[in-house]
């Protein structure tokens, strides 16, 4: 008997939680990006799990598109990090406080 679906879903939920905790607590923009990748992968794992359960290839197709969007997002995001670093020599998000009220 193959591994039950619930194990993968719980694993994905925990992975998402770890990524969310990292985004909420870490201050470096780079680490926050990595944690966002973790959360995206948790969602990908859930999609693949449901694709297997429901015998529907559409779940895997969605993961394919998520990967494309994630690659584009990382490219632009790291470009922004580099541009911000040029101006302030830091990647800490705490120092980006111009919009503070």
């Amino acid at each position, binding site marked *: 008997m193959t591994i039950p679906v619930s194990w993968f879903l719980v694993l994905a939920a925990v992975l998402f939680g770890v990524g969310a905790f990292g985004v909420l607590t870490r201050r470096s923009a780079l680490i926050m990006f990595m944690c966002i990748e973790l959360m995206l*992968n948790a969602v990908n794992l859930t999609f693949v799990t449901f694709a297997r359960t429901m*015998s529907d*290839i559409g779940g895997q197709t969605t993961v394919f598109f998520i990967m494309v969007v994630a690659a584009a997002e990382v490219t632009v995001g790291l470009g922004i990090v580099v541009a911000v670093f040029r101006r302030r020599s830091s990647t800490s998000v705490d120092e980006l406080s111009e919009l503070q009220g």
Partner: protein
Amino acid sequence: MLATTYAIPDVLVFVSAAVMILVGAVGVIAMTNPVHSALSLILSLLGVAVAFLEQSADFLAAVEIIVYAGAIVVLFLFVIMFLGVDKSKHPHVEPLVGQRWFAGLGVAITVAGVIYLMANSHWVSGVLSASTGGTALATGAGNVTQLGDSVFTTYLLAFEATAGLLIIAVVGAVLLARRERTAEVDDVDDDVEETAADAGRFDEDVASQEVES
């Protein structure tokens, strides 16, 4: 008990994938050195690829390794090296008092709620309520065929839209990361010269940009 219910190789593969995923994920947020975080991210992504393989998503497992562990993490490492490894000076100081506790509490509630929802619904019992695609998912080359059929027929418009998205992302990244060249700027990546050059550039742009500090 487990051994009687499930095949031992399947359980072993799942457990090793889970350990890789979780150890890597905790490593990403626990390491103070960004390079170590990126390497932990690779470990976690390889674990996800193993989990994909176990669920007959062969093509996605390969793409996961090539695109994520190959391209995206290398991009992260490139940017870390480009900016210089800056360890956070005080990684254990919380700028907001109690932020970690609140974050941990919120995440715990969220994850527990999701697991509760899953445990009390029909999804995890194997009963199919949604209409299925019919045929079971194939593995190996059949997986690629199925995925290709799906991408190039049902999701063709979305696939072409991603082409536009990638072009826009590339142009945007080049625009963001580009350094405006002035006469006195040379290609030497010396910090002092770079700062001086940036200061000069900002002076020139003072009419259009708000200069701070």
